[in-house]
């Protein structure tokens, strides 16, 4: 297996999907001649043509809306929102239209659509290039929300998403694009949607997380292992559907749970995880569930100090683990 960064894994997956299925096409802002602002689709337009790699106007609602129509007509569109922060104009198309297409037509119409978007902070992206949007979308039945954190999972989940019959919001943490490297299986590789990954097995406490925070949590877990605390790290990978079984099993095993995410704390994914554990395994716990999340301010600022104060770090995660272990 070759070692790749997450960006290369996404690029390779998109390329393979385009080459192997003529129903697949890509549309978004700057995806053609420029090859996406991160160069993920660089060279694709020359190879696949302007009809299949479509540079769109700056109009997010129609990027998703046109893709929905194409999906209903039997194609497999991959729509790109250049930054997750720009997705709000497309909110109605994703939540009001794509997610409800199957339900409202009683199965008559499908909407096999993938919406890819880079999200998250740590790249000095300021207020409008660093948000996490998952909590705004994972609430919505009919929609799937994925957030892979490793190159292999990015490939496996994106392949599954493109093959899926339902609309999928595919979140790529932009800090992981070049920072995170790993072995990626050659050829067609799928990861099932809805299955969490045990990133690190442990017995003393569980950290439930996803995205960039998986890597910070594993780093923190290695640090406190030297202090005699053996932490388990669960990477959700799939936010909706959510793998409750793995979450409950881990909570039941370690009896202590820390939820970590970069998105705002209030009403975030961590709230659902905490509620699920409280409903199903409350009396298995030895400590209250703890959450370490982004603070409830609109976004991280441009200044380094704002960004660092906003994002959970390996050090802060390690501190939270220690507190939890000592409860």
């Amino acid at each position: 297996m070759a070692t790749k960064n997450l960006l290369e894994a996404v690029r390779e997956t998109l390329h393979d999907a385009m080459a192997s299925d003529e129903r697949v096409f890509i549309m978004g802002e700057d995806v053609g001649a420029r090859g996406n602002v991160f160069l993920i689709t660089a060279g694709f337009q020359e190879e696949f043509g302007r009809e299949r790699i479509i540079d769109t106007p700056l109009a997010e609602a129609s990027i998703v809306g046109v893709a929905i129509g194409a999906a209903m007509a039997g194609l497999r569109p991959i729509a790109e929102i250049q930054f997750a922060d720009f997705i709000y104009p497309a909110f109605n198309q994703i939540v009001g239209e794509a997610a409800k297409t199957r339900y409202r037509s009683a199965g008559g119409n499908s909407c096999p659509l993938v919406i890819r978007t880079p999200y998250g902070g740590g790249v000095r992206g300021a207020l409008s290039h660093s948000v996490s949007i998952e909590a705004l979308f994972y609430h919505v039945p009919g929609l799937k929300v994925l957030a892979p954190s490793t190159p292999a999972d990015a490939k496996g989940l994106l392949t599954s998403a493109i093959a899926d019959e339902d609309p999928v919001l595919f979140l790529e943490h932009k800090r992981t694009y070049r920072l995170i490297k790993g072995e990626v299986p050659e050829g067609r590789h799928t990861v099932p949607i809805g299955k969490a990954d045990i990133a690190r097995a442990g017995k003393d406490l569980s950290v439930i997380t996803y995205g960039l925070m998986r890597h910070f949590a594993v780093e923190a877990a290695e640090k406190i292992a030297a202090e005699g605390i053996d932490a388990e790290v669960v990477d959700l990978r799939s936010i909706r559907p959510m793998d409750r079984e793995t979450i409950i099993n881990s909570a039941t095993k370690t009896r202590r749970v820390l939820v970590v995410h970069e998105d705002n704390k209030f009403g975030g994914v961590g709230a659902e995880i905490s509620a699920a554990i409280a409903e199903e395994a409350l009396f298995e716990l030895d400590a209250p569930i703890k959450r370490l999340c982004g603070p409830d301010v609109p976004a991280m600022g441009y200044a380094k100090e704002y960004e660092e104060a906003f994002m959970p770090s390996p050090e802060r995660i390690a501190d939270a683990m220690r507190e939890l272990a000592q409860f």
Partner: protein
Amino acid sequence: MKSEPKVRASLPEGLTPERLLEMYYYMVLTRTCDDRGFALNRQGKIPFAATCQGHEAIQVGAAFALRRGVDWLVPYYRDTCMALSFGVTPREQLMCLFARKGDIFSSGRQFPNHYSVPDRQIASISSIIAAHVTHAVGIALAAKMRKQSAVVLTSFGEGSTSEGEWHEALNFAGIHKVPIVFLCENNEYAISVHQSLQMGVKNVADRAAGYGFPGVICDGTDPVQSYETVRDAVERARSGGGPTLVEAKCYRAMSHTSDDNQLTYRTPDEIEAVKTRDPIPRFENWLKERGMIDDDTIAELKAKALREVNDATDWAEAQAPPTEADLYTHVYHSGPLS
């Protein structure tokens, strides 16, 4: 006995006397369904009905300008006549009014008149104004990418043209010259808000220039002129000429829906005045002048429509409602997920 035709030579290309009578029948059938919906609502048998009275001519004209089985229809919720003329049956129409499990459009999930018949190339829509116009562009884009000869017709009221998604849809279609006809059924009111408070231009069709394709206007109360206008736009799309924005000037004879009272924003005089533009008697006169119909035939066709709608009503009312278990189906392809 019908009188001899007076001006048969003037029949527009593509329309035979038989097809014209068929168009007339669909208008009458729709009016009968429409009246039935409101009657059932007033009887407390169905919770909601929407009307298309005043729109029948443009809708039947548009549907007849399309090729069934080839072209796509992405209609909006006021398109009863378009749907019936494109292959939806009265029983299917009444099933959606009664919100029965067997309602083929949505199994009783959506408001009435949200048509969805994929195997007849009628795409599903929601009630969110203009959202479906972008979908129609996507369907047209797919047809172009697959080099199919399908043309997409999507319709909406003039109120929809205020929405950002409407403008985005037309912009995208103009850039990519997809095979689509945008049909605005301008009835002058977005529920209670008059066109003068919806736009600063006189005609919706004027907006097409901003997207690089033609905008044309027709009398939407005249089925023949409506047919010819939409037919030309469909031919243009089919031959690779790209989109056309058709604005059909029509009117709404009744309140927005059974939940609305137009007397709160329209004067009784205005309501009486628009009734003089009723497309059905107008088309009757047109057909009579050409010797294609007489009073007996009109009575026969109206009686036939009433029999069809009576049958559809009795049948649909007797069908089973959805069960609680049906609530959980079709959330995802593989069923409900956590």
